[in-house]
């Protein structure tokens, strides 16, 4: 049985990765999870410099989901390369680094630093964080800006480049196309939905930042739809995510058109989830006599009368 998939020049052992911001820098889990068994460890969004992030409360639970406004607290790319990357390499992890910037130059510089480091498998370009003004949403919600930042980073790095798209747009597939045209090797989606929860007793938001990003099972049906739409409009691989908690959910994304998936919120609930998802996927494949996981990708049979 072949679980491997290709994202540009990169070959992943399995299609199942951790999602950025939901698995720290990966090293936090090195004792309990064999990081080398994951398709990839996608690390927390990194700016060039350290960032404090937002004051707490930073999360709040909502029906079948959660809001977060962490504010991209992080150690910056240089400390990451010095302090975390060696351990990730030692553990045999395939490392994808999620990068952020407030300007195109910053994205480019972060990408450059990572390209020179040893042990980075790919770059995920975060142009979709809804939680900070400069978190890229300014890039991720305008086609022209998306094209510009992807092109610029494309020129700066030979690493596989994966822009991460925001779902907070009218036509996500047009952003996937813009990324493809600008030279992306793949796109990943979805980041979180901009959302808000109010404490009606105090009449204040429940998050210190006011708004936050919705993730978890609640958003899965929207995320699956968006992956399906993108898969029909671009030829580069798609990395799907949003509310995956079971092997059936992984399969939904693959069948909708994702070549690989990421698991975010569900890792909070179960840090041991990766092994369970992989074995569920294997069970399904043997039940359906599917030899290579790649055969499943985009196999959704849409009814004739459908509207899209």
């Amino acid at each position, binding site marked *: 049985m072949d679980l491997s998939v290709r994202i540009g020049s990169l070959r992943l052992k399995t299609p199942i990765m951790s999602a950025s911001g939901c*698995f720290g820098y990966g090293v*936090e889990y090195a004792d309990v999870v064999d990081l080398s068994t994951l398709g990839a460890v996608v690390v927390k969004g990194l700016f060039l410099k350290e960032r404090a*992030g937002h004051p707490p409360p930073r999360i709040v639970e909502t*029906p079948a989901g959660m809001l*977060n406004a962490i504010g991209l607290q992080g150690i910056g790319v240089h400390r990451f390369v010095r302090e975390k990357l060696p351990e990730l390499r030692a553990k045999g992890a395939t490392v994808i680094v999620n990068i952020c910037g407030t300007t195109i130059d910053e994205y480019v510089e972060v990408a450059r630093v990572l390209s020179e480091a040893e042990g980075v498998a790919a770059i995920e370009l975060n142009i979709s964080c809804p939680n900070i003004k400069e978190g890229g949403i300014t890039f991720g919600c305008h086609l022209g800006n998306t094209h510009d930042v992807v092109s610029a980073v494309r020129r700066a790095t030979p690493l596989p480049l994966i822009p991460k798209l925001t779902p907070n747009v009218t036509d996500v597939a047009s952003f996937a196309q813009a990324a493809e045209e600008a030279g992306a090797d793949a796109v990943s989606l979805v980041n979180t939905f901009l959302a808000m929860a109010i404490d009606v007793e105090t009449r204040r938001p429940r998050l210190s930042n006011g708004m936050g990003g919705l993730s978890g099972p609640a958003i899965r049906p929207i995320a699956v739809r968006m992956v399906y739409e993108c898969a029909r409009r671009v030829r580069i691989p798609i990395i799907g995510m949003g509310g995956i908690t079971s092997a059936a959910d992984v399969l939904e994304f693959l069948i909708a058109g994702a070549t690989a998936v990421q698991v975010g919120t569900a890792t*909070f609930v179960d840090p041991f989830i990766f092994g369970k998802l992989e074995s569920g996927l294997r069970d399904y494949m043997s039940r359906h006599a599917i030899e290579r996981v790649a055969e499943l990708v985009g196999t959704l049979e849409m009814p004739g009368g459908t509207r899209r």
Partner: protein
Amino acid sequence: MPVDVDAEVLFSTRLSDDYAVIGFRAPAIAGAIRPGQFVMIRTARGDVPLLRRPYSVFDRLRDADGRPVGFSIFNKRVGTGSRLLSEATPGATFSCLGPLGRPFTLPRAGSEAWMVAGGTGLAPFATLSEELAAEGARRRLFYGARTGAELFCVDRFEPIGVDMVLATEDGTRGETGRVTVPLARELAARSGAPPVALYACGPEAMLQAVAALAARYGLTCEVATERRMGCGMGGCYSCVIAVRTPAGGTRFARSCLEGPVFSAADIVWDDVDR
């Protein structure tokens, strides 16, 4: 190294409408627990509530031969998750991830240990009291609640030789007022030797008051914090608390990894934006 155990409820002792002590069978967790550590409990199987809930370990449970077989929690019902736990009956199982977090540091030999608990902040002091007994140090527990009916498990501590100082805000049991009132008085009254190590767990306003007393008298003080947690494993950066950096600045530390127990002197108490 934390493990995930599908832990059976062994007992649930209701203390009042809102409070209960609930015991879980989880040998793999029980053996490794250190005082001050916590477990992340999944209160439902489905998607609501989605996230696990953090609970301090109350008692370490042992079998007839003294081998650790599980742990209990001291649960207050405040919302959906804690309600599901409070309704649990023996035989039900809950996924429990633990033990997690940095435990208390034991005091230097010869020190007295003064523990300060507000409400469910009592929880970590059962195991700490036992561990401290081995050291032979004098142990005092200042324990406060809103009202006398919410001072639970006092008889859990007296038999093991912990001196109890009780306080209630409405004066229905023990001294009247916040628990920091008798604490301040006793601290002022002591001669200076033997040295005292302070340990506190409870509402942040109480922790902050205890930290201020510790600073005033130059005492070591550890506080067990209870920030909102998403994962308990260092993955989500939701549980942060502002701490001082060596350079004199502040930074947000993950209380699940660097805490929940912190040295009170390290904490910057005004980090929360409300």
